[in-house]
């Protein structure tokens, strides 16, 4: 089944949404649990089996998930598990679930993790700054499931979740931002602490514990209790638009006053990506970030944003290995990575 995924590109990488150059993707995730069954991390095996059965049965009755794939963690080898993480279809924690599975809709727009720390983690992923549409999609799926599945809910606390940080709406909305100009000028360091003051948080490309690389920042709501879903989304959009404006101002400054130094930086990065024989993962992310900005500012030959987006994901280790059919060593991967990048950049 995963062979098909390696050949196709998910919807969220297509760079079609609003502000898609800076806002790479939007994601909304809802956490839900089934009433009267312990949370997945604490439940005995037979409860996890029951939960899986209940949810899969419910999902088979939802029209928008009719042709969805069911992928079970227990059927996968570590490389395949890693692939799903790189693809943003499951969390690293989910790969260790005693009985985890993930439901993936067409073009990977909707995915539902079963038995992560909560019984259900449903998410919608889309391109660009697209939280309003995303909310409508996931709210509809949730409503349809809610008519079939009894969700754990209390008057005071709302939707009950294993972690107190998710209780209430169970909703985490986030935007993946590419902020190379703010990073270059170090102004990003002023923005990140400000986020926590307005109930938001910034993380790396691969979620909670991942560090930031390639100037990618995932900004999301921190608060889930005491505010309505729409309010939380609206507040997040406001903050995101502000950050995007700052990034644009900073880019304009670079374009007009960056001088030959900045041009040199872009062309060096491009030169490396086009000519190097071995490109390690981290270096690839850093160089791709620089040329993305260089292309945007008109210093480098134009390359479609969609292709640059794809490179962010398809140059990851498990993607590279599955593309050539199995596990390989790091040196071979660095070579595969260089070749892939050069294939994608050469075609103009």
């Amino acid at each position, binding site marked *: 089944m995963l062979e098909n995924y390696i050949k196709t590109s998910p919807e969220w990488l297509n760079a079609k949404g609003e502000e898609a150059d800076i806002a790479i993707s939007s994601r909304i995730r809802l956490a839900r*649990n089934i*009433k*009267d*069954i*312990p*949370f997945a*991390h*604490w439940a005995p095996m037979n409860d996890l089996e029951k939960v899986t059965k209940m949810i899969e049965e419910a999902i088979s009755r939802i029209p928008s998930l009719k042709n969805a794939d069911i992928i079970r963690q227990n059927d996968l080898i570590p490389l395949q598990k890693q692939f799903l993480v790189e693809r943003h279809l499951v969390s690293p924690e989910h790969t260790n679930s005693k009985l985890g599975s993930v439901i993936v809709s067409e073009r990977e727009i909707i995915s539902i993790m079963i038995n992560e*720390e909560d019984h259900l983690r449903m998410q919608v992923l889309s391109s660009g700054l697209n939280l309003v549409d995303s909310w409508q999609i996931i*709210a509809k799926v*949730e*409503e349809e499931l*809610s*008519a079939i599945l*009894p*969700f*754990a*809910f*209390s*008057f*005071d*606390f*709302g*939707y*009950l979740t*294993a*972690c*107190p*940080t998710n*209780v*209430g*709406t169970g*909703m985490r909305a986030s935007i993946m931002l590419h902020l190379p100009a703010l990073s270059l000028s170090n102004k990003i360091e002023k923005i990140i602490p400000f986020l926590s003051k307005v*109930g938001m948080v910034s993380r790396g490309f691969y979620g909670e514990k991942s560090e930031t690389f390639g100037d990618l920042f995932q900004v999301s709501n*921190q*608060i*889930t*209790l*005491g*505010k*309505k*879903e729409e309010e939380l989304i609206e507040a997040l959009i406001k903050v995101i638009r502000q950050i995007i404006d700052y990034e644009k101002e900073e880019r304009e400054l670079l374009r007009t006053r960056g001088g030959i130094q900045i041009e040199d930086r872009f062309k060096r990065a491009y030169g490396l990506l086009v000519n190097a024989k071995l490109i390690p993962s981290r270096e690839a992310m850093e160089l791709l970030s620089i040329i993305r900005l260089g292309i945007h500012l008109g210093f480098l030959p134009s390359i479609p944003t969609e292709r640059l987006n794809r490179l962010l994901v398809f140059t990851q280790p498990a993607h590279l290995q599955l593309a050539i059919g199995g596990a390989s060593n790091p040196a071979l991967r660095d070579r595969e990575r260089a070749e892939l990048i050069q294939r994608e950049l050469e075609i103009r």
Partner: protein
Amino acid sequence: MVCDICGIKEASIHFKQVINNQTTSIHLCEECAEEKGFGLSSISQPFPNLLEFFSNIFKEEKGAIAEEMRCTGCGMGLSEFQKGGRLGCSDCFEAFKQPLLSLLKQIHGNTVHIGRHPFGFEKIAQKEKKLKILKDELKKAISTENYEEAARLRDMIKALEQ
């Protein structure tokens, strides 16, 4: 119900504690709860030292060794929650309500949900609201010794609860 510590004021905070498979309830007034460090204002500390608190109570009153606060729904103990940061089941929210309230206040600045509800929940919510109003009225009727009204309210509550 009066407070277990001062024995004077009305208890408004209630805990359940399992000791040697027997459930013991503890009832405290706001002042005593606050003094022992887990009233609503103890926000700075996510988990006030409940274990110490319980061991003190049981040493003083029963001479028994205190066991920790435990959820009767899933068996998770408070210390397991503190260590892992995750609750075991829906009932944990009731079992660890007091420490959770301060924690939620700290994380979200809030303790009450106002967002989306499950399908068909509005009806249930209305019923619960009505029940609460009737129960408050019943209390009032009893305290003013209006027994005729109290009987009427009791019947209404019974009918609604079925």
